[in-house]
C-alpha cells in the first residue's frame, strides 16, 4: 500500500458518519483509560471502583477529562478521548447495563427504541456510509 493510499484511507475513515475507527492515534490517546477499564474484568477492580469511583480512577495516569467522562458516563466522549468500545463497555457492564443501552445512549435513543430498531432490521446502511454523500 503506498503512502498516498494509506492517507486516503485515514481520510475515508473520518468520512464514515458516527464512527471512530480505533486508529493508532486513538490508541495512544486512550491507553491508560483503556487499561483502567480492563481492571474492571476482575471483581476486586469492580468493587474498588464502585466504592469510590474518583479514588479508583486516581490510581491511573489518565487525564482529568478522561476521568470526568468516566464519572459522568459520557460514552461518546469516552470514545473521543481514546476509549475503545470493548474496553469502555466494561464500565457499562459494571453498571449492569446492556450493550443495547449504550448503543442507545451513543445514538441518542432509549434502550427500548434501540432494541426495536434492531428487531426491525437494524439501523439502515443507506445514508450512513458517508458524511459527504447519502448513498
Amino acid at each position, binding site marked *: 500500500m503506498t503512502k498516498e493510499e494509506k492517507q486516503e*484511507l485515514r481520510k*475515508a*475513515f473520518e468520512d*464514515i*458518519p*458516527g*464512527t*471512530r*475507527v*480505533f*486508529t*493508532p492515534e486513538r*490508541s495512544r490517546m486512550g*491507553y491508560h483509560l*483503556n*487499561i483502567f*477499564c*480492563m481492571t*474492571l*474484568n476482575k471483581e476486586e477492580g*469492580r468493587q474498588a471502583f464502585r466504592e469510590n469511583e474518583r479514588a479508583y480512577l486516581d490510581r491511573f495516569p489518565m487525564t482529568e477529562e478522561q476521568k470526568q467522562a468516566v464519572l459522568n458516563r459520557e460514552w*461518546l466522549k469516552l*470514545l473521543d478521548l481514546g476509549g*475503545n*468500545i*470493548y*474496553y469502555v*463497555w*466494561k464500565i457499562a*457492564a*459494571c453498571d449492569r447495563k446492556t*450493550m*443495547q443501552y*449504550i*448503543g*442507545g445512549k*451513543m*445514538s*441518542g435513543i432509549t434502550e427500548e427504541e*434501540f432494541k426495536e*430498531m*434492531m*428487531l426491525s*432490521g*437494524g*439501523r*439502515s*446502511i443507506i445514508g*450512513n*456510509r*458517508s458524511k459527504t454523500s447519502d448513498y
Partner: protein
Amino acid sequence: MAKIVGGIGCSHVPPVGIASDKGQTTDGYWSPLFEAIPPARKWILDQKPDVMIVVFNDHATSLSFKMVPTFAIGVAPYYENADEGYGPRPIPHYEGDDQLAWHIAESCILDGFDLTIVNELDLDHGFSVPMTVMFGEVEKWPVKVIPICVNVIQYPPPTAERCFHLGQAIRRAVEEYDEDLRVMIAGTGGMSHQLQGERAGVINTEFDIKYLDNLSGNNIENMKKPHLEYIRESGTEGIELVMWQVMRGALDERVKETFRKYHVASSNTAFGVICLENDN
C-alpha cells in the same frame, strides 16, 4: 495424513451463549435462530471431525492493549472458559490438540507467517459461542480444538487477503501432518454490526448476503476487499469478517455450501452461520 474436511463461518454474539446456558433457546426471541441450527450440527458431526481450528478474536478478556498479536495460535493441551465478568460459562473446558497446533505454528512461521505462540489463554465468547452453535449443549466437546486468535480490535487488523493466505498455510501444514486426522476450521465473528458511536446498530443485509454468496462463488471479492469497505459497509465490528477468510483460505478453490442461516438481529448483530465443503 490429516486433512481439512470442511469449513464453518459463524458469528459469535455473546447473548447466544447466554441463551443456550439459560435454556432460553425456545423462547420467542431466540427460537428462530436455535431452531434453524440442527442441520448444521448434523452436517458437522457427519464429517466426523477430530479437531476444530477456531479462528476468533479475544474481546479485551485474556489479551489487552499491553500486547496485541496480529495472529496468535494456542498450543496448549487444554483451555478454560474465561470469566468475562459474570463467571465463566457453565460449559466444558476444551482439550487442545497441542501436537498438531505446534506443527501448524512451526510450519506457518517457516512459511513466513509471524505467529505469536500462546501456551495459556482463557477463551471468551468469541470462541465459546461458535462452539455452542456448532455442537450444542454437551457434556464433553466431541473434538479437540486449536484456537487462532486474530487482532480485529486495534486498527490495523490483518487484511482479508493476509487472512486468506494464512488459511492456505494452515491447510498446507495440516496436510503435511502424519496422523490420520479429520480437521475442520471455523471462522467466527461478524456479520455486519457496529457497537460504537452514533451509527451503532447499523446492519447491511445486502452486504452480508453477498459475502455469504461469495464464499462459494467469487470469494476473491471478499478477499480483496479493503478494511475501509468492510468497516463502511458492515460496521466497525463487521471487520471481524476478515477472520472468515482464514477459514476460506484453508478450503479448496471450489467449495459447496451445505448450510446457511442468516438472521437479523441477535442483540446488536446480524447473525450468520454457513457450512462449506470442498468441491474439487
